[in-house]
C-alpha cells in the first residue's frame, strides 16, 4: 500500500527541521538561557525531540504496511525528486532520532571549547544528511545527502584543531572524497547508459534484454566500492581507526552510531533492488570481505591502546557481521528476506549499543583524562569503581550486549546471523564469527577491568592548590548517565521482546526484497511506463 497524499509531505520535515534549527543557530547568536543551556543546544534539543516524534509517527504508519512516497513539488518520478519511506527507512530514521537525542544531553554535559566552535549547528547538518540519505529515492539525492553528511563530518572530525585530529582527519577526508568520486562515477554511468537516476526506474530498465554485459557489473562494482568505503568494510576501513578516537567523545559517539551505517543502508537498499544477481555471483568475495572485516576489527579492537581507539576499531568487526548477512541473503533464486532480517536486527542493535558504549567510554576518558586503561606494561588501571558505580554498571551492560550475551539485543541478532551461516553451510565464516564474538567479550571485559578496577584515583581536591594533584577530570553527571541508561534499556527491550523486534526486522527485510512493491509505490499513474519509452 502506498500513501502519497498530503501526509507524505511530512517526510520533507526530516530534512527541514534540522535545517531550520541549524539556520536559526547561525542567525541567532549563542547566549546562555539557563546555567547549562544556551540557544544552540536548545535548538538542537528541540529539533531532536521533534525529529524523534516524527520518526515514531513514521514507524507507526509504515509498520502497518504503508509506504510513504513524496513526489517533491508535485513533479512525479522518474524525473522529479522522490522521497520514499518504508519500514526499513523508518526503522533507521527512528534509531537515528534516538541516537541523536541521546548525544545532545551528553554534549550539554561534557562538551568543551568545541561548544563555541559550532558543534550543535554542525550536528544538526549531520542529522539532516543522515535523515535525507535514508529517504532518498534516487541516486543523485542519495549523493547530495551523502555529501551533506560527509562534509559536515569533515568539520566535526577536525573540530578542535589538535594535531592528531588533523592527521586522522586528513585520511578521513581523502578516503571519503575518493569514495564520493567513485559514487559520482556510478551516478554518471547510470545516467549515461540508462538515462535515469530514480531507483525504481533503474530497476525497471535493468530488466531490458539487450543491455551491454558490462553495465550491471560496472554499476554494482562502483557503487559497492563507494559504499564499502563509507561503511568502513575491510580493505577500505583504515580511515576509521585513525580518525574516530581523535575526536571529542561526543563526536565519537555520534559518528559511531550514525556515520558508517549510512553506507550499509545504501548497500542494503540498492543491492537487493538493483543487482540481486550480482549479490549471488559475488557472494564468495563478499563473504571473504565480511570475514576479513570481522577479523581485522576484532584484532584491531584488541590491540587498541586506548579505550576509545579499541571501541572505535571494533566497529569494523560489526560492519563485517552486518555485511555478512547481506552477502548470505543473495542466492541464485533471488535475495532471501530471511537472510536480511537478522542483519537488519543486528544493525539496529549495533547502532544503539555502539553509541551507548562510546558514550560510556568517552565519559571514562573524560573522567580519567586518559584513555590508557588497558592493563599492560604501559597502561595503568583507572580504579573508577569507587567513584562511578553507575557508570560501571552501564558500561558492563553495554559490554554484555556488544558481545552478544542474552537477554540483550546483541544475542538475538547474533544468533540469527549464526543460524543463517549454519543453514548456508558457511562453516569458516561461522568459526570466524563465533571466535570474534568471544574475543570481543574478552577485549571489552579487559577494558572494563582496566577502567574500573585497581586503586581508586585520589578524590577530587577541593582544598586549594596546596593539596596533592588530582587525576580526576571535570566529571559528568546525570545528563551523561541518563542517555546511556536509556540506550541500554532500548537494547534490553529489543532483546527481551525479541519476537516483536524480529517481526519488525522481518518486515523491513520483506520490503527490501519486494522489488515490485517498491517500483509500484514510486511509479504512480503510469508515469514510469511513459518515461521508459
Amino acid at each position: 500500500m502506498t500513501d502519497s497524499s498530503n501526509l507524505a509531505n511530512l517526510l520533507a520535515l526530516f530534512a527541514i527541521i534540522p535545517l531550520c534549527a541549524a539556520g536559526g543557530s547561525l542567525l541567532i547568536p549563542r547566549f546562555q538561557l539557563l546555567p547549562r543551556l544556551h540557544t544552540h543546544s536548545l535548538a538542537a534539543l528541540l529539533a531532536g525531540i521533534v525529529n524523534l516524534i516524527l520518526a515514531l509517527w513514521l514507524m507507526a504508519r509504515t509498520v502497518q504496511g504503508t509506504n510513504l512516497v513524496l513526489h517533491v513539488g508535485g513533479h512525479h518520478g522518474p524525473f522529479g525528486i522522490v522521497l520514499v519511506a518504508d519500514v526499513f527507512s523508518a526503522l533507521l530514521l527512528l534509531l537515528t532520532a534516538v541516537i541523536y537525542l541521546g548525544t545532545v544531553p551528553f554534549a550539554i554535559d561534557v562538551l568543551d571549547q568545541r561548544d563555541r566552535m559550532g558543534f550543535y549547528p554542525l550536528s544538526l547538518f549531520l542529522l539532516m544528511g543522515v535523515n535525507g540519505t535514508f529517504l532518498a529515492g534516487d541516486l543523485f539525492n542519495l549523493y547530495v545527502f551523502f555529501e551533506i553528511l560527509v562534509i559536515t563530518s569533515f568539520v566535526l572530525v577536525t573540530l578542535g584543531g589538535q594535531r592528531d585530529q588533523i592527521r586522522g582527519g586528513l585520511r578521513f577526508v581523502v578516503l571519503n572524497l575518493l569514495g564520493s568520486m567513485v559514487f559520482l562515477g556510478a551516478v554518471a554511468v547510470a545516467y549515461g547508459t540508462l538515462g535515469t537516476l530514480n531507483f525504481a526506474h533503474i530497476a525497471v530498465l535493468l530488466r531490458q534484454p539487450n543491455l551491454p554485459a558490462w553495465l550491471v557489473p560496472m554499476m554494482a562494482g562502483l557503487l559497492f566500492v563507494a559504499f564499502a568505503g563509507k561503511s568502513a568494510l575491510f580493505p577500505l576501513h583504515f580511515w576509521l581507526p585513525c580518525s574516530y578516537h581523535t575526536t571529542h567523545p561526543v563526536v565519537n559517539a555520534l559518528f559511531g552510531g550514525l556515520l558508517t551505517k549510512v553506507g550499509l543502508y545504501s548497500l542494503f537498499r540498492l543491492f537487493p533492488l538493483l543487482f540481486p544477481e550480482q549479490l549471488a555471483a559475488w557472494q564468495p568475495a563478499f563473504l571473504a570481505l565480511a570475514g576479513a572485516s570481522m577479523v581485522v576489527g576484532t584484532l584491531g579492537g584488541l590491540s587498541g591502546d586506548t579505550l576509545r581507539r579499541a571501541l572505535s576499531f571494533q566497529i569494523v568487526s560489526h560492519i563485517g557481521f552486518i555485511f555478512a548477512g547481506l552477502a548470505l541473503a543473495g542466492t541464485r533464486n533471488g535475495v532471501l528476506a530471511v537472510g536480511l532480517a537478522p542483519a537488519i536486527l543486528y544493525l539496529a542493535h549495533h547502532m544503539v549499543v555502539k553509541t551507548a558504549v562510546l558514550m560510556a567510554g568517552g565519559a571514562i576518558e573524560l573522567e580519567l583524562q586518559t584513555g590508557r586503561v588497558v592493563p599492560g606494561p604501559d597502561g595503568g588501571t583507572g580504579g573508577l569503581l569507587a567513584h562511578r558505580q553507575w557508570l560501571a554498571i552501564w558500561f558492563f551492560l553495554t559490554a554484555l550486549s556488544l558481545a552478544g550475551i542474552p537477554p540483550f539485543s546483541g544475542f538475538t541478532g547474533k544468533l540469527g546471523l549464526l543460524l543463517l551461516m549454519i543453514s548456508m553451510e558457511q562453516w569458516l565464516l561461522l568459526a570466524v564469527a563465533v571466535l570474534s564474538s568471544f574475543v570481543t567479550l574478552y577485549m571489552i571485559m579487559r577494558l572494563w577491568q582496566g577502567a574500573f578496577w585497581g586503586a581508586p584515583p585520589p578524590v577530587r581536591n577541593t582544598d586549594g592548590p596546596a593539596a596533592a594533584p588530582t587525576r580526576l577530570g571535570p566529571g559528568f553527571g546525570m545528563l551523561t548517565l541518563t542517555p546511556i541508561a536509556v540506550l541500554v534499556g532500548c537494547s534490553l527491550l529489543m532483546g527481551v521482546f525479541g519476537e516483536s523486534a524480529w517481526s519488525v526486522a522481518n518486515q523491513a527485510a520483506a520490503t527490501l526484497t519486494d522489488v515490485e512493491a517498491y517500483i509500484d509505490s514510486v511509479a504512480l499513474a503510469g508515469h514510469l511506463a511513459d518515461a521508459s519509452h
Partner: protein
Amino acid sequence: MTELYLKYVLNGLTAALILLAFFFLLRGHLLPGGGFVGGLMAAAVVELAIISQGAVTVQRRVGRLLLPVSGLGLLTAVLAIIFGWPQSGTVFAPVYFHLPWLEVEFSTALAFDFGVFLVVMSVTSLFLLDLTLTRSARLEQLLDMEDMEDRSVGQEQVPPPS
C-alpha cells in the same frame, strides 16, 4: 598592502557588481543564472574590498555579519519551501504573486533563490576572508574580541572544567 588605484575604482565597481549580482539572481528565474551565480558575484564584491582595503578592515566591517546572514539565507529558503504547502498540498511547490502596481511577478521560487544567494555570498565571503587574513591579522582580530577565552582553542589536550 592596499592598492591605490583599486581604491578609486572601488566605489563604482562595487555598485556595478552588486547590480550584476542582482541581475543574475533575477535572470535565473527563467534563464541561466540564479541564486548560486548571483551569490558568487556578490562574494566577488567582498573579495574586491579585501584586495583594496585589506582583510582586517573588511573583517571589522562585515565579518561578524556573515555567519548570521548565511543562517538568514537558510531560513529564507526553508520558508520558501514550505510556503506553498497549505495551498498546493506539497512542499517545494512555487506560489506566484502578481503585483499589479509594479507589473512584476514575484514567486516563492525567487525567495528560495534569494536564500541561496545569501548563503553562497556569505559563506564564500567567509572563506575568502579566512584565506586572506594573515596570522598577525588574526591575532589583531582576536585581541578585538571580548571573548578572550577563544585564544586557548586548540592548544589544550584535555577539556577545561565546564
